């Protein structure tokens, strides 16, 4: 008997704002991640680059975007729990 480990596929909603929202044409997108273990975690950097693969219109803006998980910024190396309440793409801000 051969054990085949099927990668675990997770759907994850990601929220977009401002320029990112306009470039994709939607406030939200759903990404499908293949996780090879049960942790359900990916680095923020990985999430951003998957977004760029799916939406090439974002490629210029993404390098200056930050990811926010449940309303807090996370660094690129942070392992993001894909079960978080909200994952948001934050383009460079211009309030004030």
């Amino acid at each position, binding site marked *: 008997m051969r054990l085949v480990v099927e990668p675990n596929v997770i759907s994850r909603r990601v*929220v977009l*704002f*401002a*320029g990112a929202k*306009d470039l994709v044409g939607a406030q939200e997108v759903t990404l499908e991640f293949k996780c090879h273990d049960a942790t359900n975690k990916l680095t923020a950097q990985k999430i951003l680059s998957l977004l760029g693969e799916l939406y090439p219109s974002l490629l210029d*803006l993404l390098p*200056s975007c930050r990811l*926010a998980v449940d*309303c*807090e*910024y996370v660094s690129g190396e942070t392992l993001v729990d894909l079960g978080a309440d909200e994952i*948001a793409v*934050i*383009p*460079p*801000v*211009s*309030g*004030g």
Partner: protein
Amino acid sequence: MFDRRIKVEIVDVPIVRERYDDELSHQDVGAHAWFAGVTRRTTQGKITSLLHYEAHREMALKQMEEIADEALERFSLAAVVLVHRLGAVPIGEASVLVGCSSSHRPEVFTALPWIMDRLKRDVPIWKKEYDDQGAGDWIHPQNLA
């Protein structure tokens, strides 16, 4: 010396500063300072007809509260007011209002620009600039840390 006193708001209507004056008062306070950022007609020679602000509202409020709290602590302030308006902000009207008070004036003079710098770096609010032809551009400054 002072109780923690911050007032942080995101509003969709014109900012009326008088509403916030009392927030800064305290009998041991000797210095009040205010800053208001208003829409101006020209940016680098280009005519602006309107600014339109959007936010990640929940996160923006949370970030503004963190900034107000940190300023309170860092500059020994008695109170901090931080208000941002969303939606269309016509020329001459304020998009942001910052107020703070302390025993002495150096603290408020240092706190005001610090609060504005932090707000412009971290608070998820974006402006779309409309020129006199009605074309709108999201402003995403690329040269910030």
